[in-house]
């Protein structure tokens, strides 16, 4: 019998569970997805013996680094802040550490050399098994991969875009399913009695703004809702703009006034809510006449509630599913030089995700028309009005 002071090994767990060491390795690394009696016996034995795999040793044996890169805008925008938190904890659950890097840092000159040397950034080399680049919220042309990520020995994917065509050139991308998000938002308003629906969208000049326009129009017809040209506004995603546009719309009478408004971002919704509270007269502002709001949120719920912003009718990014999908894509993606991914992440069953391929090849790197995209629906977060 081993002495209590000795560190337990994989052999001890295998003996206790009555299986081979290879089976113990597969179960505890997550590479064996079946949750049967064998898996339960192995996990139980590992728990009783206080055995945990040594990620560094596992990585050495598997010729991996057990390290993933996560490139974020720093200061982080609201999407990046939410994504980082979930990605780091999900990667840790799969025995991977995360190397956080600022997007700006990747484009700065380093060691006196030019910043455009492909794959030459000293932080990388062979240091990571894969890398996720969190795209900036606006997407579009500024979401291109930095040169340091264009020719690497590990797969690079992007996360956070709402339009696959605006994804950075990468082996794959995980984004928000904007069409289903708009359908959910419109359906929620219709369920609550609205029919004349307005949209306060982001800047129409951005690809994201155009996607909102198409997705919103498509979402209306199936639920017999209508809109008007003057009810679809595009502009900055701040409270001032939300206030101005909502005040303009509710100054109209009768059928010229919307009875439901879809707001993009919490700031726009805060402005619109303030307009409803301050510009409608007491008689007008009855529950029946007051337009209802649904927010396509960009913050965590508790931030909004903590600021006393009132009842929530929100859809928020599902960071858990997006981070899960990003990890899965990393394990499935090929490196830019065509070799298979080095990351040994277990495959995770996806549900309800919309998988596709980039519709158009984007410029600035290799042809990525085959790059897989995963679009994740947002999470409804409905709370009753106070």
């Amino acid at each position, binding site marked *: 019998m081993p002495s209590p002071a000795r560190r337990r090994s994989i052999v001890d767990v295998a003996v206790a569970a009555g299986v081979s060491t290879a089976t113990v390795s597969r179960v505890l690394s997550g590479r064996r997805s079946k949750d049967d009696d064998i898996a339960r016996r192995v996990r139980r034995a590992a728990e009783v013996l206080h055995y945990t795999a040594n990620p560094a040793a596992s990585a050495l044996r598997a010729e991996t680094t057990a390290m993933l890169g996560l490139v*974020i805008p*720093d*200061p*982080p*925008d*609201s999407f*990046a*802040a*939410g994504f*980082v*938190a979930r990605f*780091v*904890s999900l990667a840790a659950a799969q025995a991977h550490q*995360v190397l*956080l*890097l*600022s997007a700006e*840092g990747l484009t700065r000159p380093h060691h006196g050399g030019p910043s455009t040397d492909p794959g030459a950034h000293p932080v990388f080399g062979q240091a990571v098994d894969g890398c996720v680049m969190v795209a900036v919220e606006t997407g579009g042309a500024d979401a291109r991969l930095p040169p340091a990520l264009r020719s690497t020995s590990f797969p690079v994917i992007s996360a956070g875009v709402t339009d696959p065509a605006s994804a950075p050139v990468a082996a794959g991308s995980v984004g928000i399913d904007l069409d289903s998000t708009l359908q959910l938002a419109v359906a929620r308003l219709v369920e609550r009695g609205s029919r004349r629906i307005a949209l306060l969208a982001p800047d129409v000049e951005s690809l994201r703004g155009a996607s909102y326009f198409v997705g919103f129009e498509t979402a209306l017809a199936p639920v017999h809702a209508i809109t008007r040209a003057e009810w679809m506004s595009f502009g900055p995603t701040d409270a001032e703009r939300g206030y101005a546009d909502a005040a303009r719309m509710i100054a109209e009478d009768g059928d010229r006034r919307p009875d439901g408004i879809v707001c993009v971002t919490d700031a726009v919704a805060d402005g619109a809510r303030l307009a409803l509270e301050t510009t409608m007269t007491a008689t007008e502002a009855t529950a029946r006449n007051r337009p209802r709001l649904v927010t396509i949120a960009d913050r*965590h719920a*508790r*931030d909004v509630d*903590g*600021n006393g912003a009132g009842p929530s009718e929100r859809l928020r990014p599902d960071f858990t599913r997006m981070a899960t999908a990003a990890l899965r894509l990393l394990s499935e993606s090929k490196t830019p030089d065509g070799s298979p991914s080095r990351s040994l992440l277990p495959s995770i069953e996806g549900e309800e995700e919309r998988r596709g391929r980039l519709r158009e090849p984007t410029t600035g790197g290799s042809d990525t028309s085959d790059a897989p995209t995963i679009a994740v629906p947002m999470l409804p977060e409905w709370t009753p009005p106070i």
Partner: protein
Amino acid sequence: MSTATRTVVITDPVGIHARPAAEFAQAAGSSGCSVTISKQPGAAGVNAASILSVMGLGVKGGDTVEIVVTGDDAENAADSLIHTLTKGE
């Protein structure tokens, strides 16, 4: 323009890890104020809007951190940021 200073003891046993650092940096960046955070009161602070700077401090459970907020409505911004830093604990 005013300056507000707050100190708080981090009670989360794992300190300011990725999630609180990300949320704090995002809140600091969107506060409209200039915000620094330091691990020892009185010490030179780092840019609180940078997640990498905040995580680079290596704040552990039990450490006292100081935030210094400069800008319009610094008092309210400081209270809100302290709330962000402590709410998940």
